């Protein structure tokens, strides 16, 4: 499994985003062990030092911790994970708002659009922001 990175932005930023997403959606379970740096590098097809840099950022944010000799674990702090979920959802909302504004849509239209689409749209499709489920031929 490799990710289609945007090569114009630092890859470690994109890895941080991908790892946060994994924690929020539960691909990486709370308190679960995260694979070694080189295993992740091999899985994602990226440089091990870049993976290390992204994981260090996650540690600084309290999203994972390193246990001496036994490895690296996802935080089991449910509050922290809920906080992260809210943070990522807010980022997605900001994206939507920016684009809705760009189209010249007022707030009441933008919110009613969400309410309307919430139940009618086919939301079982793979998340297009989820790089790992993006089909390979979707590359621009």
């Amino acid at each position: 499994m490799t990710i289609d990175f945007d090569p114009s932005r630092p890859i470690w930023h994109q890895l941080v985003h991908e790892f946060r997403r994994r924690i929020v959606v539960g691909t990486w379970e709370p308190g679960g062990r995260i694979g070694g740096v080189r295993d992740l590098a091999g899985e994602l097809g990226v440089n091990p030092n870049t993976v290390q840099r992204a994981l260090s950022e996650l540690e600084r944010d309290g999203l994972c911790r390193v246990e001496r000799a036994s490895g690296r674990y996802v935080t089991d702090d449910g509050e922290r994970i809920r906080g992260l979920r809210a943070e990522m959802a807010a980022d997605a909302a900001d994206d939507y708002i920016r684009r809705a504004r760009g189209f010249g849509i007022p707030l009441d239209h933008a919110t009613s659009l969400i309410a309307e689409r919430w139940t009618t749209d086919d939301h079982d499709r793979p998340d297009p922001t989820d790089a790992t489920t993006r089909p390979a031929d979707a590359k621009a």
Partner: protein
Amino acid sequence: MTDHAIEITGLTKSYGRTRALDGVDLRLSPGRIVGLLGENGCGKTTLLKILAGVMQDYTGDVRIAGHRPGPRSKATVSFLPDVSFLPERARIEECLRLYRDFFADFDEAKARRLVDSFGLETSLRLKEASRGMREKVQIALAMSREASVFLLDEPISGVDPLARDTLLSTIVGDLPEHSLVLISTHLVHDLEPVLDSVVMMRHGRVLVAGDVDDLRSEHGTSLDSLFKETYR
């Protein structure tokens, strides 16, 4: 002894009246995967050959894995040239034996795994193999040493996408942890996520050297575009 895996000061090399390398200074640390980029004829291959110890007659100071290029460095430096270096008439089996005899750090089981993953039979004679197949054999051998420095000259340009993926995942996940990997290429795009630093050369000199993600932040662009901009 220094902490650098490669340390080059004032390296100059001429072919007759042509200067292939013109005062190269370069320091590279262990544990990194470095792209050596530049147009044809910029001196990449000459630099790699000197580092590998297969080309002498240069001026300047060159250290690799703590030694001047020579027999002692060769024991710990794995070189993958962009030309065929194995005996034409040999079978893959005999090439494996050759590496076993020559290099104490050769991991034969790993080489067999790679040969197998490339879909090659060890009974195959090289002269009966296609150019791409021969390149795969050379890749399998070169990547299976427990070397401290790997010098790879255009390793991805001649093989199919599947073999390229195998090579790249070997480079990021399956080489000795503190080894330095120096890869020359002009296919920057394919290597982007794999590299952590880059050295760009032109006319025998180093133009840009640095951390890839820092360069991306600094210039707000991909290496591929930076490369094209630099060489415009």
